[in-house]
């Protein structure tokens, strides 16, 4: 394979594209639309995920111990729990700390009347999960420990978050698959038309002794070009839209933006740009490959 023939294939691919303008534009428009919708969807999704993650980080399980359990045992349990993969971090809250917090939170100046710590047995472990879907598993592990008196947790929060994550995953996979299939179909149609239009040329090439690779390359390149153009356009559009929307939301709903933090465009694009390019190139390659295989028996 010489460089010059690579250039030839590239030149021919571009020529095909121009000669086949109407179909090529239609394909580019469709892929742009598909990837644009996908990109928007993705942007919303990563922000949603980001919010869910923030909430998730706040989900905790509190473990209280049987009266008389010494601190050393509790700290040992802390280490055991920390070693589990679904656990993000564990905080040990001694009886004194618990009482201090309680006093500050609820009693204020009335706390003066207490001489002893009424929360003597309230030393506890506060466990933060990295994976809320494993909450039930962790709870049963903790409950099985003999010193455990009580485990406080909320199944509702964990289940909701787990469900939300699962739905997000399913929907995005389904969505990508659908858009991918539609785009591949459209590209392969465009390439087939190109092949039909150039049947004569292809025949002559074969008579003269062009290799299969040489005959096929321009069409695959045409498909790749359509795919790349069809992914660069939505990347640019989404970049502007994303910034505009963020600006708008921040200025219009200042309260909302103080509760939720949105991801900056650079963070989103770190994933989105390669993803869209890969999708575009993949769609272009598979789409053209299918029709080249089907219609170009060289």
């Amino acid at each position, binding site marked *: 394979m010489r460089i*010059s023939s690579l250039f030839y294939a590239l030149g021919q691919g571009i020529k095909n594209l121009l000669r086949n303008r109407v179909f090529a534009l239609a394909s580019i428009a469709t892929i742009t639309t598909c990837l644009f919708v996908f990109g928007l969807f993705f942007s919303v999704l990563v922000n949603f995920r980001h919010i869910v993650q923030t909430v998730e980080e706040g989900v905790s399980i509190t473990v209280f111990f049987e009266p008389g359990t010494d601190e050393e045992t509790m700290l040992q349990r802390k280490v055991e729990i920390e070693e589990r993969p679904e656990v993000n971090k564990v905080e040990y809250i001694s009886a004194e700390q618990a009482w201090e917090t309680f006093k500050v939170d609820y009693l204020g100046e009335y706390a003066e009347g207490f001489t002893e710590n009424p929360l003597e047995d309230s030393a506890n472990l506060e466990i933060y999960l990295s994976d809320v879907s494993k909450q039930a598993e962790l709870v049963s592990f903790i409950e099985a420990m003999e010193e455990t008196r009580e485990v406080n947790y909320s199944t509702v929060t964990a289940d909701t978050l787990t469900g939300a994550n699962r739905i997000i995953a399913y929907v995005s996979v389904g969505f990508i698959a659908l858009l991918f299939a539609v785009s591949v179909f459209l590209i392969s149609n465009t390439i087939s038309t190109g092949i039909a239009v150039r049947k004569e040329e292809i025949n*002559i090439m074969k008579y*003269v*002794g*062009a290799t299969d690779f040489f005959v096929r390359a321009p069409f695959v390149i045409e498909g790749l070009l359509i795919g790349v153009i069809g992914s660069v356009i939505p990347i640019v559009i989404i970049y502007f839209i994303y910034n505009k929307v963020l600006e708008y939301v921040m200025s219009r709903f200042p309260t909302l933006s103080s509760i939720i933090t949105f991801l900056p465009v650079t963070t989103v694009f770190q994933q989105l740009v390669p993803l869209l390019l890969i999708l575009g190139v993949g769609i272009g390659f598979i789409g053209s490959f299918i029709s080249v295989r089907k219609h170009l028996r060289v």
Partner: protein
Amino acid sequence: MRKRKSTIEIPEGNVITMRNVHKSYEQGTPALNGISLDIQQGEFVFIVGDSGSGKSTLIRLLLRELTPTEGDINVLGYDLTSIRHSRIPKFRRNLGVVFQDFRLLEDRNVYDNVAFAQRVVLESTRNIRKNVPEILATVGLADKYKNTPAQLSGGEQQRVALARALVNRPLILLADEPTGNLDPTNSWEIMKLLEKVNEGGTTVVVVTHNQDIVDKMQKRVITMKRGEIESDEDEAGYMEPVPYMDPMEEPEYDDQSFGETAEIEASFEEAVYVEGGYLDED
């Protein structure tokens, strides 16, 4: 399907060897029925015969566009029965081919049509710039290189096609009715060009219905009939073939003639009689 290696012997100096070649298309009677044939390097061979007698099928087998149902074909040492698919392009670079309908690319000019053949075999641009004008001069189209096919006469178009077939310097030139769409003057010019190519050492195989040209050129003539070789004559020492007459048909005579001299006309009539209604149907 496993490809069988052929075991035939290739006579010294042969560029085309066919042994007991049969070809059947999916439907219908066999197109070729046991063809055996030797063509030596540097020969000029006409292939004639009724419509449907298998001439084009034979050409397409030699191009390895088709594979025989049975029998062996060897072209330039390539065993066409067992040749690997990936080797076919390399094989075809030794052949030039011309068809009745020219098959030029309408969207580009004469120069690019010819250069196309060099580009697809990865010839360097420098060589292309040298070779294309040279071959266009050979076929007498040096001044029309910027024209598109639509701006050329039929004869000129066929000369472009010929230039394209020759620009890669093939060892064998195959032509399937190259003059089928041309008037006598243009037909004759093409034939003269083919003869010139042959004098340069290229083996030339021409399928034609133009009996007149065949007679005038005095070359080897292979006559096909229903997928078989009916006769194989060297016209240089022309021997009177047994006149063939289809009992079901009246012999056809045609007073249309090609060429200017009476001598040609005479041989023309003779040939019509010999071939029994074997004429270009207008």
